[in-house]
């Protein structure tokens, strides 16, 4: 075992891991699940993408340049935003800006709050800390924001008749949308709350598992995990609220009329 405490995995052993997928593929063929090809492609992508990430991170950690960190954070946020919008097919067009802003502001704030105030890294852009933490924060808030946006617009569509009746009574856009906004925020936050409640009892969170496998003291790994979990929850909550509040108006005309499916595109 090396001094760092990490048991290194040799290349042949890494290739051996594919054997387990091979067993699954054989089972898929035997049961006629039709997943053998998907499994093969997904496994190949896992190898390629993660190995590429390993090489890139090795280079980024060694370079320790602030602008590389900033560019990487920008790319990560753009990709996360695109995934959010892809998962909300009912969302109106033109949401990229608000979704990007919600994720960028919350994730950047939370990431640098953790690295500067809690971990207290010597330089603000220390890539070894900033990039993995930003990845966790972005990944989780992306899921929360996607769930919240998807629920917001599907819930509004399901209330079309009620919304028309309320609009005719003089309700404002906020009064019309607030019930759906609350429903969507609950939908976006429930997975995070469940994850916090189950952590340590039902499962050992990924970051803590990684640190323990890398030889860290479990109590120290726990402290990191608590910080990350709370920060991720905060980023998900604030990001979801921002994204929903910035986007619900887009489903209404300038006169406060809900744009149901037949009249979308008219302002």
């Amino acid at each position, binding site marked *: 075992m090396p001094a760092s405490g990490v048991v290194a995995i040799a290349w042949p052993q890494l290739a051996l891991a594919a054997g387990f997928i091979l067993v699954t593929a054989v089972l898929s063929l035997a049961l006629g699940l039709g997943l053998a090809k998907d499994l093969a492609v997904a496994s190949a992508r896992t190898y390629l993408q993660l190995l590429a990430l390993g090489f890139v991170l090795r280079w980024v950690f060694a370079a320790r340049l602030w602008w590389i960190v900033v560019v990487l954070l920008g790319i990560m946020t753009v990709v996360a935003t695109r995934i959010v919008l892809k998962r909300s097919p009912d969302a109106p067009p033109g949401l990229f800006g608000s979704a990007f802003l919600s994720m960028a502001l919350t994730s950047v704030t939370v990431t640098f709050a953790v690295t500067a105030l809690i971990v207290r890294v010597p330089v603000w852009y220390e890539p070894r800390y900033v990039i993995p933490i930003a990845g966790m924060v972005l990944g989780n808030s992306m899921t929360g924001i996607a769930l919240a946006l998807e629920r917001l617009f599907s819930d509004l569509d399901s209330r079309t008749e009620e919304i028309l009746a309320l609009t005719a009574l003089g309700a404002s856009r906020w*009064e019309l949308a607030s019930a759906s906004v609350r429903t969507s925020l609950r939908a976006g936050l429930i997975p995070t709350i469940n994850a916090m409640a189950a952590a340590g009892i039902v499962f050992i969170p990924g970051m803590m598992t990684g640190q323990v496998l890398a030889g860290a003291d479990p109590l120290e790994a726990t402290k990191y995990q608590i910080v990350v979990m709370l920060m991720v929850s905060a980023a998900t909550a604030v990001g979801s609220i921002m994204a929903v509040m910035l986007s619900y108006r887009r489903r209404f005309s300038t006169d406060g009329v809900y744009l149901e499916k037949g009249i979308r595109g008219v302002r």
Partner: protein
Amino acid sequence: MVVSAPLLSATGIVATRRADGHDIRVLNGVDIALRAGDIVELRGPSGAGKTTLLLALARLLPGAGGILALEGEPATAIAPEVWRTRVALLPQRTVLSEGAVAYNLRLPFSLKVREGVAAPEECDLREALDDVGLDDISLRRDARQLSVGQVARVALLRVLLARPRVLLLDEPDASLDDASAAAVAGMTARFAAEGGAVLRVSHLRTDAAATANYRLAAGRLTEVIADAS
């Protein structure tokens, strides 16, 4: 005879609808004036644009054009939400919100647009329900448990309690039995008698209290004069 100024006047109302990749002009310059005491019936073939016209008059149709005025005041000088409190539309498929009957009846008064206007007391709500034959409905009854006929009357009552000047009704007696339809007709007649104006889309029944009949076809509105013989 002195002709009173219209409560609601609409001139050159136009509206288009997109269907199968083409823009169809549903309303092609509709003019109408509704005066206090009017109960105007609107008829026309399916798809002629009757609902579209009501939506345009209530300023609930984005993209509609034309000139609207309420008691001589142009629509451009009145905020859309305020306009809708005075020119109230009751949609054909009325849905009450989740909650008790009393909550639904008071809902208009919880909106910002009526800030400062006192909501009716429980005894007033009870009396109003009794008046329209809903004496067997408790104020605490879940609105989602009401029958179609009861929902139609509660929804109309909710609009009337908010005291609009003009009432736009989209087939208010569709899918109602004769007794419920008569109750709805009675409510609208009382509203008109108290100085309101009513425009109602009719399909099945004829309102005996109607003061005028219009027909909408090919985007145009024409008055139907009853045959004296």
